[in-house]
């Protein structure tokens, strides 16, 4: 059974305070575990710091899958304890650019003056550029694809023996809408990756009104995310990458309004910190 736990659900920048306690203030990080011990970490936002403290002492390999290198998705990386443990092999998967390797791009953050430790000084780190051919980590089969978001950005499709989870935290497929209508599936960013996902974790950062001032910034509204989930035939959908300006009450309201307005045929679950999903069923 593949089990996913949300350690960071916030987009753009971490927030704190009493009004964001329930959904959480940490930026994007999701833990994926299989029964056989396979461990993936999706993105290295500030949520990865707490995740790092819960790694079992007998863990020998961790794969961190970065969707892209915007700060809210890598800021926690330097504070992920297992990176410094010489007993653990850490593999980082993430997009290179046309001119810089993944290592060189990450080193822009993990080096002075922004950070005291050099990436090259980490004991057992291997970097892998994506997108790439499908690859296997333990019992999990992983597919990658570039998706619509500024700069090289991928989504991940993770296939376990019992089902499939898809992670698209930063995604603006609605740029392809013409007069509010979706084009055919071949013209929808991320469609192949997300099709028939048992669990879809997808960007839902904006309200319709906010989006009008942020077209092209790489994110979705609740409307876009609900429609994308319907287009790909997801069985369960989790709105994710919450705007830092949206407090808990507003996120509750946005979710309820969207359910009422769009009448999804799939299950929709709130994306809050520490929510746990077993593919196909909620714990």
């Amino acid at each position, binding site marked *: 059974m593949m089990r996913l736990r949300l350690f960071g659900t916030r987009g753009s920048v971490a927030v704190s305070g009493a009004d964001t306690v329930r959904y959480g203030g940490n930026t994007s990080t999701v833990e994926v575990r299989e029964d056989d011990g396979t461990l993936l970490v999706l993105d290295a936002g500030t949520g990865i710091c707490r995740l790092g403290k819960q790694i079992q002492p007998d863990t020998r390999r961790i794969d961190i899958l970065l969707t892209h290198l915007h700060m809210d998705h890598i800021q926690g990386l330097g504070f992920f304890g297992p990176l410094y443990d010489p007993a653990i092999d850490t593999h980082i998967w993430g997009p*290179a650019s046309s001119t810089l390797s993944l290592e060189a791009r990450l080193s822009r953050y993990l080096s002075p003056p922004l950070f005291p430790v050099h990436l090259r000084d980490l004991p057992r780190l291997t970097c892998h550029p994506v997108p790439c051919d499908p690859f296997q980590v333990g019992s999990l089969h992983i597919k990658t694809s*570039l998706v619509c978001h500024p700069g090289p950005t991928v989504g991940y499709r993770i296939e376990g023996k019992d089902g499939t989870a898809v992670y698209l935290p930063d995604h603006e497929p609605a740029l392809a809408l013409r007069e509010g209508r979706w084009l055919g599936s071949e013209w929808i960013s*991320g469609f192949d990756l997300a099709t028939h996902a048992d669990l879809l974790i997808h960007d839902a950062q904006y309200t319709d009104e906010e989006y009008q001032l942020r077209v092209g910034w790489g994110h979705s509204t609740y409307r876009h995310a609900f429609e994308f989930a319907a287009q790909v035939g997801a069985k369960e959908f989790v709105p994710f990458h919450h705007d830092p300006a949206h407090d808990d009450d507003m996120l509750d309201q946005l979710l309820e309004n969207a359910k009422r307005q769009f009448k999804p045929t799939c299950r929709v679950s709130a994306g809050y910190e520490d929510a746990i999903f077993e593919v196909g069923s909620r714990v």
Partner: protein
Amino acid sequence: MSQPIQIILMRQLAGYLSVPLFLVDPKGNLLFYNEPAEAVLGRRFEETGAMPAEEWSSVFTPLDEDGQPISPEQVPLRITLTERRPAYRRLFIRGLDGVSRHIEVASIPIVGLQGEFLGGAALFWELPE
């Protein structure tokens, strides 16, 4: 099967331009042309739909500036697909509405982050007579 993101983005870009743009896959199959291109080519994209390279490179009856036929292989976008480089030419085409138009065409290859060849795009303008 989804198109590569670069092709999806190119189509999106084309939808927001007033410059005519014609988009093909690596084999030259027509994927899309935008509304400004419809005015030059003489038919709406919804009416033509996708089209193989052999068809579009002859259906618009390309002629050089002396009125002589241009072989499909000498059309800029076909050169871009074959040689994977930009190409440019002035020529006449006869649109699907039967009207002859004097245009100039600049075509570019679309190459992904890892050097993968994804197709080509032709930008073209109608020249004032």
